[in-house]
Structure formats: structure tokens, C-alpha cells
């Protein structure tokens, strides 16, 4: 029996307050609290339920894409074409709407185009074994180019009222929760469940940690990556449906530059760009931190471009601190 003792391995590490507090998510919670406290202090309009609910409009669509992007980055891939994908989805919806098709067809078309564009990325990356950062810079140019060639300097603005009222609407009259925000919350729960509680989720982490080992243990590495690209495309399509409905128009430059904002959300959420680690909780916290920072600072009339400095600093500092502390600990 004493031999058993020697090889006894604990299921999980013993509880340790310091390591618990130093977890990325705990740091994000503290950061979020700080953001809320500071914003409440500088503006009396910040802690207003209706203002806050309107603020969610500005980040929900990006956050929906960030959920899928997080899984992709965990498997060591990236998709920089998501914003351009939105442009193509919105373009197809706009053209169909001009022909007089109704909202259900438009929604279906937006989702289908998004998933197809994602499948193009996935096929190029997995079938040809190409680096995803280059492929998606290429398809970004390609998708955005399609929208530019078709639209030129025109805009499509004729959309059925059902679509616009869905994009601008709330889940229930009088309840201050926008549709897009509700969709984000539901999807966040689904993604969290799949990533942290199912076999697929464990396989995604395994691929990110070591693709070769994952392959040898029987995980269909390229297959999983392909479907994650399709999923990311599908989420871009969903974001396109919501965004097109919300602003009621399609221009070639719709959602320009979103890809970098979405990647920032994911990285700040503690999902390592090197793959293999991260949680959906971290991502959701980072979405709130970024969304509330931008909303709070714009309440006190700080221009968006200056907020960008803060976001950039936040991104670099928040990634640098854990690396520095780990180095410092290693030395002592």
C-alpha cells in the first residue's frame, strides 16, 4: 500500500490563494471593476441601465465573432478576413433585398455566404497546408475587393423593416437588453460549454498544445481546423445580419478594421496567440473591459482615436506583466 502512496497523483493542484488570484481571469475581473469604478467617478451618466444597454450595440457584433476566433486562435490559426467577410455577406443581403426578397431569405443568405467564405479559408489552410495569416490577408483583400467592385462608391440602403427592427431592437418591449447582446450571451454560454466541457473542446486544446501529438492520438487536426474556419465565417455572417440591420445600409467599407479589434479582444482575454490556452470567461471579461472603457471615455467626449492609444497600451501591458513576473520569479 505504501507504494500506492508514492505514486499517488492528485486530480488537481491543492487550493492556493496566490495562484488563484494571479489567474488571468482574476486579473481581468479586477481590471473590469477598476474600469467601472473609474468610469462611474468621471461621469454621472455611466451607471445608467439604458445607457449601458445601448453601449452593448457597439461591441456585441464584434464579440460574437471573437468567440469563434478564440477557438481558432487556440488551435494556432487566425482569421484576418472576418471584417471583409462581413462586407461580402452584407453585399449579398443588400442585392437580394433590392430584388425584393424577404427577411428570412436575407438572414439565411447572410449566414450561408459567411460560412462559405469561412470554408474557402479553411480549405486553403488545411488542404494546401498554407499559413492562415497569409491566406486570410489574401482572402481579406479578395472579399473586400468583391464588395468594392460590385458597389463602387454606391451604397445599398433598401432593407425590409423586419431586418432593421431586429438589428436595432430589444428582446422584449421595455426590457433594456438588445437582441445582439442577448445573442452574444447565449452563444458565449454555448461556446464555453463546448470548449470546457466536451471532448471537442479538449481536442481543440490538444491541437493548440501540440498538433503533431494531437494527430498521433487520433484527433482529426485538419478537419477540426477546417470546421473552426467555417464556424468563424458563420459568426461573421451572423454579425453581418445584425450589423446590416442595425445601420440599415451596406457600403464597401462596412466593418473596416474590425479584424484587428476582434483579435485584440481575444488576446486581452488571455487566449495565447501561440495556441493551446485560454478560456471563454476570459474572453467575455475582456469584451466587457474594452466595451465599457470605450463607452465610458466617449461619454466624457474623449475621441475614439485617443481611446485607441489606451487600448493599445492595455493590450501590450497586460501581456507584458505576466511574462515579466514569470521571468522575475524564475530568477529568484
Amino acid at each position, binding site marked *: 500500500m505504501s507504494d500506492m502512496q508514492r505514486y499517488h497523483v492528485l486530480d488537481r493542484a491543492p487550493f492556493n490563494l496566490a495562484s488563484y488570484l494571479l489567474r488571468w481571469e482574476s486579473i481581468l475581473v479586477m481590471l473590469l471593476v477598476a474600469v467601472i469604478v473609474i468610469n462611474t467617478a468621471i461621469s454621472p451618466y455611466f451607471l445608467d441601465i439604458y445607457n449601458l444597454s445601448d453601449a452593448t450595440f457597439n461591441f456585441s457584433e464584434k464579440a460574437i465573432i471573437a468567440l469563434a476566433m478564440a477557438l481558432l486562435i487556440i488551435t494556432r490559426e487566425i482569421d484576418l478576413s472576418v471584417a471583409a467577410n462581413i462586407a461580402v455577406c452584407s453585399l449579398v443581403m443588400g442585392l437580394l433585398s433590392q430584388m425584393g426578397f424577404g427577411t428570412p431569405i436575407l438572414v439565411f443568405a447572410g449566414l450561408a455566404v459567411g460560412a462559405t467564405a469561412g470554408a474557402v479559408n479553411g480549405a486553403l489552410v488545411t488542404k494546401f497546408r*498554407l499559413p492562415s495569416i497569409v491566406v486570410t490577408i489574401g482572402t481579406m483583400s479578395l472579399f473586400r475587393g468583391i464588395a468594392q467592385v460590385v458597389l463602387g462608391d454606391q451604397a445599398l440602403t433598401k432593407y425590409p423593416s423586419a431586418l432593421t427592427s431586429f438589428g436595432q431592437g430589444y428582446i422584449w418591449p421595455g426590457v433594456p437588453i438588445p437582441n445582439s447582446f442577448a445573442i452574444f450571451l447565449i452563444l458565449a454560454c454555448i461556446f464555453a460549454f463546448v470548449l470546457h466541457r466536451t471532448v471537442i473542446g479538449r481536442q481543440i486544446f490538444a491541437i493548440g498544445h501540440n498538433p503533431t501529438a494531437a494527430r498521433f492520438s487520433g484527433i482529426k487536426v485538419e478537419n477540426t481546423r477546417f470546421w473552426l474556419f467555417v464556424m468563424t465565417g458563420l459568426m461573421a455572417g451572423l454579425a453581418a445580419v445584425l450589423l446590416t440591420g442595425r445601420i440599415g445600409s451596406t457600403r464597401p467599407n462596412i466593418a473596416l478594421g474590425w479584424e484587428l479589434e476582434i483579435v485584440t479582444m481575444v488576446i486581452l482575454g488571455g487566449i495565447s496567440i501561440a495556441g493551446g490556452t485560454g478560456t471563454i470567461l476570459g474572453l467575455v471579461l475582456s469584451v466587457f473591459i474594452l466595451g465599457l472603457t470605450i463607452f465610458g471615455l466617449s461619454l466624457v467626449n474623449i475621441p475614439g482615436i485617443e481611446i485607441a492609444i489606451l487600448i493599445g497600451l492595455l493590450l501590450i501591458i497586460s501581456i507584458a506583466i505576466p511574462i515579466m513576473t514569470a521571468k522575475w520569479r524564475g530568477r529568484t
Partner: protein
Amino acid sequence: MKALAKNREVLLAVIVAAIVLAVGIRAPVFLTGASLVNVITDTCFLFMLTLAQMAIILTRGIDLSLAANLALTGMAVALVSRAMPGVPLGLIILLAIVIGAALGSVNGALVAFVGIPPIVVTLGTLAIFRGLIFLLAGGEWLTSKDMSEAFLSFPHANLLGVPSLIWIAGLVIAAYWILYRQTQFGRGLYAIGGNPTAARYCGINIPRQQFIVYTIAGAVAGLCGYLWVARYGIAFVDNAQGYELTIIAACVIGGVSIAGGIGTVSGALLGALFLGVIVNALPVINVSPFWQMLISGFVILAAVIVNARSERPIGKLILASARKLERKA
């Protein structure tokens, strides 16, 4: 002949020449000396920045902040020129190089000494640099009437019948060629990208090399910042917006491997020239400039498929049946 066709640079050169000729047949004006010089002059920025980016990509890095660095430095020197119109041009150019290098060294320090992934660092500094332009100028646009005569005329000046922009680009290209081909430092960049562990065992100081490479790239971006503002006569927050991806596209088309360790000066230059020719040829043959993005998208994908077929190792396949499957795929 077959070996020649297999050579990536030769193939790319033939394609570029074919495009130039095809456009020339449709619109003979494109083939005149003045028009071709104009194409080259227009592409000078891309030549310099592509070589700067290539040095970084060789070490398995990436710099998304080059265009933002260019815009910030350009704005800074334009403000100096407005405040002190008498400052000699040489000092302005030196200032641009120093500011650019300082901005690049921030990237370099964070990548090399702190150890943050390059894409994260430069994504952050991209946003910070753009924001700083706004802070610096208070949201103002500086146009040619804010800049001194000497400041504006330099990029348009001719020396021995060749625009000064081409001379400067030529110097930068020559410097990079010597760096890559003739110096231990340059060969070290290939070694780092090819196999970092081996490079370290060979005694290459990887952080030091990385830091220098990002700093030099920043200096080149700063130099381009002055030239850009002076040539186009405008400095504003969104100057050269999105150009960072054009630079990377030129690298990819030129056969620089994003996985590091592979790339040649001639390839990178041809990649840049390709994009430059497309941009300049479309209006000549009456194709709407809106086609530009679509075409470069196709070309990037084609180039990456041709170049990078088997770069990603997937581990040794033991079973014969698995190997057969792999061949089919």
C-alpha cells in the same frame, strides 16, 4: 530552361514583364519612359518597406505598425517644418530617421527583451501610433501650404535625370542587399528564422538581432514617412491606412516565407513591383481602381499556394496507408 522556369524570381519577373507589355498593347502610353519612371517612383515606398518587413519576417516576426510609424513620423516632421520653416532639409530627414528608429526600437525591445509575440506587440503599437498622430496634431490635417518649399520639393527633385526618391530607394535597397548577402548579421537573420535553437547554439545573439532589425525597419519607415508626406503634400491621421498589409502582401508575393528563414532581396523587390505595376496599370487601361483589391487578393493567394506548398511539417507518418492518404491530399 526548365530550371529557369522553376526559379521563383525569374517566373515573377516574366509575369511582371508580361503584364507591363499587355497593358502597353492596350495603351501604348504606359510604355513611354516617363510613365515607367513614374511607376517605379510610385513603388519606391513599397520597395523600401518590403525589404524592412522582410528582415523581420525572416526572424519569424511580423511588424503591423510600419504604416502607422510612417504616418506618425511624417506628421511629426511636418509639424516641425510648420513651426520652424527655416530648419535645413538634412536635419528634417535625420529627424525622421531618428523618430522612426525610436518607434521601431519600442517594438524591438518588447519583442526581443520582454518576449511578447511580435503580432501582439505591433497590433498594440499600431493603435498607439495612430492615436499619437491625433494627439500630436490635435486632429488637424497638415497640407502643402503648412510645409516649407524645400520640404516639399525634395522628393520631386531630379539628380542626373532620375527623381531623388529613386536614388534614396536605391541606396536603401543596396544597403539591405549588402546586409542580407554580405554580412554575418544578415546571414544570422536567416539562421534565426530557419532554426532558432540551432542559431542560438551557433552563438547568435537572437534578442540583440531582433532588436536591431525592428529598429532599422522603424528607421526606414520614418524615412518613408517624411518622403510620403512631402511627395503627397498631406499629413493626417489615416495617412497610409492599411498599407501595413500591402507591405506584407508584397513580401508574400515575392516568396518570403511567413514561417521565417526564406526570402531574397530580388524576390521581395519583384513582389513590390508587381503590386506597383497593378496599381498604376489599372487606370491606364480604364479599369476602375476598385478592382485593385480583388486582383491583389487573387495574386496573394496564388503566390502563397505556389510558394509554400509543403512548409508545414506534420510529423512522421509511420503507416504506409497513412502515407498514401497524405499523398492524395
